[in-house]
């Protein structure tokens, strides 16, 4: 197993490099250095100011002609100013663009140094991610655990009472809940449970234990929304197992139904459940985007989307790298857990 884990760990930098290359290409396909500059110096800045920003940040280099034009700009007489306000600088003549290869080299260098730089608000990216991660986890971790626990429990119940009224009620309720639009549920949940009836705060977040009262409603809604999918998935997994020979044998031995389900079936359904749980890990720290924005929870979900919308290259780069590493580690963990959960699985 150790050899397998080491081999997987050795593959990781290669996979990570692939992800970084794709992100770099995609980001700079939709965002030009000019756009980045405009985001920083404003829509109303002159072309020269935009170019100066790009030069300072290594996206272009002035040519001799460009330098001469800049000098000439400074030496204009006062009479000339009102007539030719600001000269136009030409791409390739007055300045040269830094090649994409050099930009990519710098991009990789910064990642290797764990130097993610500053976000568009001049905050260190690592600090931004660190602060946001806890709020995201405070929402998603308990919500995920409760939803999984209830999902497994009701899945088992549905399997146990299959083709009875209980099974029908559970399945129909799951289908009904899964049919509700998430956004509509958040909106109506917030409007009625919080604003109209005042059972919960409408939105916000607090420090320490004070955060609990702000998290209750989003967690409740998350669990409610997840119930439909969870129940159907777990019921199918459980039913698959209950048709196995060992279950028939256990029943033939005279074990009661609860023992069969909770002692034997549950253990053998762990592999699909582990896959589901471990793959969910990266999504947990990234938060639940819509819930975070609706309920004012200062997590990473909104931050990432906000970064993409505002061409915040450093945040995008950091979340992609962090997401890729977490995802790869989660996959490795799930492989290891398979072997632990099922002795028949051999990692090689």
């Amino acid at each position, binding site marked *: 197993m150790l050899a397998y884990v080491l081999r997987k760990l050795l593959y990781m930098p290669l996979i990570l490099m692939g992800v970084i290359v794709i992100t770099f290409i995609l980001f700079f396909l939709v965002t030009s250095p000019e756009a980045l500059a405009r985001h920083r110096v404003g829509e109303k800045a002159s072309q020269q*100011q935009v170019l*100066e920003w790009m030069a300072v940040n290594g996206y272009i280099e002035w040519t001799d002609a460009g330098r001469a034009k800049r000098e000439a700009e400074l030496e204009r007489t006062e009479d000339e100013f009102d007539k030719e306000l*600001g000269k136009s600088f030409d791409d390739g003549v007055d300045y040269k663009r830094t090649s994409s290869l050099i930009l990519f080299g710098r991009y990789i260098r910064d990642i290797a140094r764990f130097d993610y730089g500053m976000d568009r608000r001049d905050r260190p990216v690592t600090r931004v991610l660190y602060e946001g991660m806890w709020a995201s986890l405070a929402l998603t971790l308990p919500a995920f655990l409760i939803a999984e626990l209830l999902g497994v429990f009701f899945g088992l119940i549905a399997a146990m009472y299959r083709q009875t009224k209980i099974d029908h009620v559970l399945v129909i309720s799951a289908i009904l809940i899964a049919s509700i639009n998430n956004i509509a549920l958040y909106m109506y949940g917030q409007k009625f449970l919080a*604003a109209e009836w005042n059972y919960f705060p409408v939105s916000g977040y607090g420090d320490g234990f004070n955060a609990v009262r702000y998290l209750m409603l989003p967690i409740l809604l998350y669990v409610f929304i997840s119930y439909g999918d969870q129940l159907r998935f777990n019921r199918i997994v459980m039913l698959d197992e209950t048709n196995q020979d060992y279950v028939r044998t256990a029943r033939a031995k005279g074990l009661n139904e609860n023992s069969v389900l909770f002692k034997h079936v549950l253990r053998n359904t762990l592999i699909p459940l582990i896959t589901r749980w471990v793959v969910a890990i990266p999504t947990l720290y990234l938060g639940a985007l819509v819930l975070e924005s609706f309920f004012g929870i200062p997590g990473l979900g909104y931050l990432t989307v906000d970064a993409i919308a505002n061409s915040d290259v450093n945040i995008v780069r950091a979340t992609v790298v962090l997401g890729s590493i977490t995802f790869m580690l989660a996959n490795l963990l799930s492989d290891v857990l398979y072997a632990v959960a099922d002795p028949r699985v051999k990692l090689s």
Partner: protein
Amino acid sequence: MKLLRAIMHCLLVAVVLAPLSLTTTACGGTAASLAAADQGSIVIRRSEGEDPKTIDPHKAGDTLSSRHCSMAYESLLEYDFLERPAKLVPCTAADMPTYDHATLTYTFKLREDVYFQDDRCFHPDATTFEKEGESKQALRGKGRKLTAHDYVWSFKRLSAIPDAEGFWLFEHKIVGIDAYHARAMDLFSDNPEGWRDHLNNGSVEGIWAPDDHTFCVRFIEPYPQFLYAICMSYGAAMCREAVEYYGLEIARRPVGTGPFVLTRWRFNMEIVWERNPNFRDQRFPTSDKPEHERFKPFMGKRLPIADKVHFRIIKESQPEFLEFLQGNIDITGIDKDQFSTAITPQNELTPLLRDKGIELRTWEDPYMSYIALNMDDKDIGTPAGEKGLAIRRALSLCIDRDDLIRRYLNGRGSPARHVIPASTFGYTEESAMSWQRYDPAEGRRQLAAAGFKVESIGRDLYRTTDPATGKQVSINVLIRRNDQASADYAVFLKASGDKVGVRIDSERMTFSEWLKRSNDRVGQAFDSGWIMDYPDAQNNLQLLYGPNAAQGLNYSGYNSEAYNRMYRELAPLDEADEAQRKRKGELVVQMHAELDKDLPWVMLNWNKTYSLYHSWYSHPDPNPFAYSYLKFIHSDTPKRGELATSWAKMPVLPALLMSLLLFVPAGMLLNRVIRQAR
């Protein structure tokens, strides 16, 4: 099995307790806890849709950042809180500046009672924030007196940092500032020490301080808009000690002379400002005018009136609106999704809001939407001659601006027929541009007169073809958004074009992409907008000044000799001088006539702002250019606490119903499982 039974029992207990916890969660709910927290002080509670980009005044280009900068920082002048139309008054200046026409120099005398807030950066033992971190923040030094040298240094900083948003206001205007800026840019990345020395010891020929309380600025040419420009955050005084101590962190830890001190900023959560104890003795202005009657209780009171301003960061419009309805925030705008909940079709408040004593205020925003037509385009621009002009006219005549405002702005706007808003000097009804109206029949006539073949292909559907090519006349508009609203807008444009037979195709894209394309003028037409920076017609008229095409402001690339000449004459005219004011008025009218003749833009609309206020909030008369108004605002905090608490009723029936529907069946099921397990 014992373990299983224990788990089942725990779950059963949890299920039984769930409805109980639901009803107790809100005990001492938001309204009551806010009322308790605010007791004994005047607290303004507001919300923002996102965090400010920065509270560094030299980098704050957006309204939100500027509003927060004005809490901590001050400029030499500010807008009068009561007077309308907007009027400038001294802020940290002792009086209005004097102007020497011969040397083109403004001279400001500073007040002698202005001090920076107390801060760690003034402590004799302070090193840098990077080294000390939060640990030493409690050990503050006494804020020192503001001097004219702080303004000199601040103007130099604005010119020396590469990402200063406001530099464009002073570029090419102040003597020596361009050379200073270019040198700073050369030094910035390669020689940080040299850059720092340039910032601290270098000089700009046109900015100097003869003594501690006199600040002078000399211009290349007359620049009367300078007085407005310095009222924006870019004109604020920063102190060198704070910038050196905090480094980049200064964007989150403002140290200024303003009315408030930032005490807490938690990203995506809240921003809290509290009264600055060092703030000078500034009083609420007095006035006998009847329209200022409601401010009588505050006149002569020391500023800031509020002890604390608490901003919540609420990104979505629904929670913001619900928090407002609960009384947890004092003021809100109206998002289109909430519009029908708040406003009736008769443009009045709905009973839900009226019963809570909420007040609606509306005013014209200095924000205009327009489509800039590329005047260099071979089909619709100057090269196309009379045919191009006919297409431009047809485009303008086919758009039903009233319908556009009704559909996409919930009626919050007015059709635009001028390049300047009605509140600006120079605006006259007579100067309205004749082609900026809805008249598709006239549009078709113009096209036919120019030699195009216009034929009807259905009810209100036409097809205009160019006999020379046999192809339908078409135009491509670049839209700077890529959401559902922009898709609807594209459909609207297409339907408008059909009324004159011109095919209007739209390309929707991100704002970044749009900016690149429009700056490079790669496209036929650019869906654009402009928010006026200061109440001077020059600010909007510059968008069509030929040489500004290279600057990225003049998206249409309009370059009319006559217009340029008039703009050059208008820009330096001072409205304070009666003769110059008269001439400026004439020029604004003539420039509109010139634009009407060439039609480089299709004007769409001016925006209208709708704001809702609670009865306890003393809202100002709107001045969209002023950011430093929160020091004048009062919020009756006890009244808010009382009313908001009384609105926060918690009905028992829904909780019981939910229990019956959800928790009772779940409890019964669990019980059955437990019984079977036994």
